[in-house]
Structures are given as structure tokens and as C-alpha cells.
């Protein structure tokens, strides 16, 4: 009976969170729309959310591309198909690894920072002070961050994929001697702009939306204590990562299914 009660309680708890996060999303979207009239705020957040996540994304992209180059070559060489290395690396990155891994990095670097920042603003009464100064924190704080997150992630994912492809080239050409022309040509002929690149961009926009929604919601609703902020930050990374991975499966099934 305790188990049933516990499950019921968890279910109610989850439903309440889902409902309040949807209400928050509605307000955040209104705040995001309003923030376009003050683009300077969005630019500031593009720096905080996007530019500061760039280094980790580029470094990770380089290593992921190099590993793909290694693993791809080891398998392809068995079938004398190493000329397709460029295609394998590019498709893996553009379709899947670019959007997904950059979203996971984004959740860890920018999402956690957003949650901690908003949570701390709440704990130090900065959000309450804004309300009392007749300034809507949803418009002033949440909106610009929401827009900046959604703009940043597709750009970061594109950088991740581009650097990854370069990493694959460094390994394929530099280490294994695959001809430059062959590496790039296989990509040119095999990667479809709409099906592969455009779908990858759509994925990263969706992932950006998910990560900033969760990060801002968790920050805005975190208990105003150090423990509360710490837990909220952890929840942001865990929930963002899981939701990105689950939605990647759904999006892949929709985009690439027969």
C-alpha cells in the first residue's frame, strides 16, 4: 500500500511540475517575444550563453571527429572502403552527433549556468526587487536568455560538426594517408542538404528550446537556498540530457523513417 501511495504521490508531483513548467513556458515565450524590442539584451546573453560555450564545443567536436576518423577507418579498411571515410564522419556528425553532443555540452555548460544564475538571483531577492521596481523579470531576465539559447545551440552544433569533420580529415589524411580530394568528394556527393544538414539544424533548434526551457524553469522555481540551487542545477543537467536523448530518438524516427 505504501508503494502505491508513493507512486501516486510521485505521479501527482510530476503532473504538478509538468503543468507549472508549461505555464512557465507560456510566460517565457511572451517574454521572449517582448525581448526582440530590446535586442541589446539578447546580444549580451548570446555572449554569456553561446560564446562562452564555444571553446568546450569546439574542443569536444575536434576529438569526436578524430575518434570517428579512427574508428571509421579501422572498419572501412576491412572492406577496402576507406574512401568513404569522409561520408561516414560527416553523416554521423551532421545527422546525430553534432546536434546531440553539442546539446549535452550546452546543457552542462550553459544550462547549469543559467539555472544557477536565475536561482541565485531569486535567493538574493533580485527577482523580487525587480518586481517591486515595476520591472517584469520574465521580460527582462527570462525572455532574452530564452531567445539567446535557441539561437546559440544551432550555431554551436554547426561548429561542432564542422570542427569534427576537420578532425576526421586530420586523422584520415594525416595519419592514414587518405587523399584529400577523396575525403571531401565522398562528403559532397553523399550528404544531402535538406535531409541531412537541414534536419540536423531542426534538431539542434528543438534541443536548444528544451535545454533553455528546463534550465530557466528550474532556476526560476528553485528553492532560495544553496541546497535548493544545487539540486536545481543538477536537475537541469539530468533532465535536459535525458529529454534531449529521448527527443532525438523521436525526431530521428520522424525525419529519417520510411
Amino acid at each position: 500500500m505504501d508503494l502505491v501511495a508513493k507512486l501516486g504521490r510521485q505521479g501527482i508531483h510530476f503532473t504538478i511540475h509538468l503543468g507549472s513548467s508549461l505555464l512557465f513556458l507560456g510566460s517565457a515565450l511572451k517574454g521572449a517575444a517582448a525581448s526582440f524590442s530590446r535586442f541589446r539584451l539578447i546580444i549580451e546573453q548570446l555572449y554569456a550563453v553561446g560564446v562562452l560555450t564555444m571553446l568546450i564545443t569546439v574542443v569536444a567536436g575536434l576529438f569526436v571527429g578524430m575518434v570517428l576518423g579512427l574508428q571509421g577507418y579501422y572498419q572501412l579498411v576491412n572492406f577496402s572502403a576507406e574512401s568513404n571515410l569522409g561520408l561516414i564522419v560527416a553523416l554521423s556528425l551532421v545527422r546525430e552527433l553534432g546536434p546531440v553532443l553539442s546539446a549535452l555540452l550546452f546543457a552542462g555548460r550553459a544550462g547549469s549556468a543559467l539555472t544557477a544564475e536565475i536561482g541565485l538571483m531569486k535567493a538574493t531577492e533580485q527577482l523580487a526587487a525587480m518586481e517591486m521596481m515595476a520591472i517584469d523579470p520574465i521580460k527582462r531576465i527570462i525572455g532574452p536568455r530564452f531567445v539567446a539559447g535557441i539561437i546559440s545551440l544551432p550555431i554551436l552544433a554547426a561548429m561542432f560538426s564542422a570542427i569534427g569533420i576537420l578532425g576526421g580529415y586530420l586523422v584520415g589524411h594525416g595519419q592514414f594517408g587518405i587523399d584529400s580530394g577523396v575525403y571531401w568528394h565522398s562528403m559532397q556527393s553523399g550528404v544531402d542538404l535538406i535531409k541531412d544538414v537541414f534536419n540536423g539544424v531542426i534538431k539542434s533548434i528543438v534541443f536548444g528550446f528544451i535545454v533553455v526551457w528546463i534550465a530557466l524553469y528550474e532556476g526560476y522555481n528553485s528553492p532560495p537556498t544553496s541546497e535548493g540551487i544545487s539540486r536545481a542545477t543538477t536537475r537541469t543537467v539530468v533532465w535536459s540530457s535525458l529529454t534531449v536523448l529521448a527527443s532525438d530518438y523521436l525526431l530521428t524516427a520522424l525525419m529519417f523513417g520510411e
Partner: protein
Amino acid sequence: MEDFIVNASDIHFAYRDRPIFEGLNLAIPRGKVTVIMGPSGCGKSTFLGLLGGRLAPTSGNLEFDGQSVPAKLGPSLYKMRRKMGMLFQKNALLTDLNVFDNVAFPLRETTELQEPLIRIQVLTKLEMVGLRGAGDMQISELSGGMARRVALARAIVLDPLIVMYDEPFVGLDPVSMGIILKLIRNLNDALNLTSIVVTHDVKEGCEIADYMYLLDRGIVSAQGTPDQMLVHADPAIEQFMQGLSDGPVRFHYPARDYLEDLQDI
């Protein structure tokens, strides 16, 4: 007949199942410094939350400047808040802005004033709190007392009708405390404000108040001028005002007999 800028009648409010106010009645006289005191958790800060429209009473009427606060929502609530200034216990300064920009923040966000006019307003308010020379300092560089004065300058920068002070004396050294006490009184009189000071510091509260309210168990348990409050006949009020360790509020939390407890070991 005295003019009251805030009227609260029969206010009820609860945090979930925990009742805070059970029929609170109080009125804040215009142009005066009114101090609201009471033990921790009695709802002093909650009252400021209700008055600012950040919380809504479950029942009762709360009026500010002749208008019902709970009836205000969205833009009309924000319009009403422009007549209110608030000094928060944690100062609530924006840590990514310097002193000048913190004080200028409400003007830049809520008015169409040009930058030269904003500069005049901000420098005037910083001068009033004695920090005109600290405009370029970062918030992290300020002492506790300076941070509170910056927050005070920001609270009055929109020229409000009332200023609410939430525990303004907490965590200040004696010099800073003296400065804040002087500022509250001077600003109230010079700018023709109404000040509501929420505190549990009896000495400082009595020093500054024109009128005092003591809250306890969801209602006003006593009210009057500081002189009247200090000689109140009620033992519970006397215990609070004199800071006595024992009285109607017992020093010992209820427990079974001490000897019995020890014998069980």
C-alpha cells in the same frame, strides 16, 4: 482626521496550512515613519509582500493610496508599484552592474528619460545617501552598510510615495546602523515620504518610529507611540519590548519532568 496611506482590514493569509494572519487590522499614517515589529515568523515581511502585491491575501481588504492592492493585476499592479520603493533585507542589488547603474536601473527600465536626466537623478539620490563618489564601484567592493545605502538610493530613485524597509538594521555595524537610522528619518522628512520599517530591533525601532505596531499570532497585539509601547502593561508585550529571556514566552520548550528524563538514562 488622520490621513492613512495604507489600510489593512481583516486580512487573512496562510502559507499552505500555516496561517500567518488571522484578521490583521492596521493603518499606516501618511508622512510618518511606522515601525512594524514582532517575533521571527510573525508575518512582518509577509505584510510587505501583501502590500507590494507579490502575495495575495485569502480574504480581507488591503488598500494603498485609496486603491485595493489585491484587485491589481499585470500592468495596473506594476503602475501601482512605481509609487512604492522597497529596501530588501539582502539589498537585492544586481551584481553584474556597478553602483551607478544599479541606481539608474529602475529609471532606464521604466521611464523614457534621456541619459543626462537619468544621470542627474542618480547623482542626486547617491548624494542623499552619501555615496556620490562611489558610482563606479562594483557591488562586490561595497561594505554591508554601503550596499544598503545603494539599495536605499535605488528604492527612492523613482520618487515613490512610500518606502518599505525589510529588516534594514540586520548585519550592520554600529556606525552603519546609525547612518541608516538617520537616513530613514531624513529621507522621510525631506522627500515627504511615508516609511514602513519592519524590524525586530526594539531599540532602533523605538528610536525612529512615529508609530509602532507589534504583531503576534496573526494579529496586531499592541500599537502606539514608542513611549506608550515601552511602558505597556501586557506582560507579553513587556517581555518583547524589554527583551526579557523569560516571561509569557517561556525560555524552556515544553518537555516532561527533567528528573524523569535523567532517570531514564
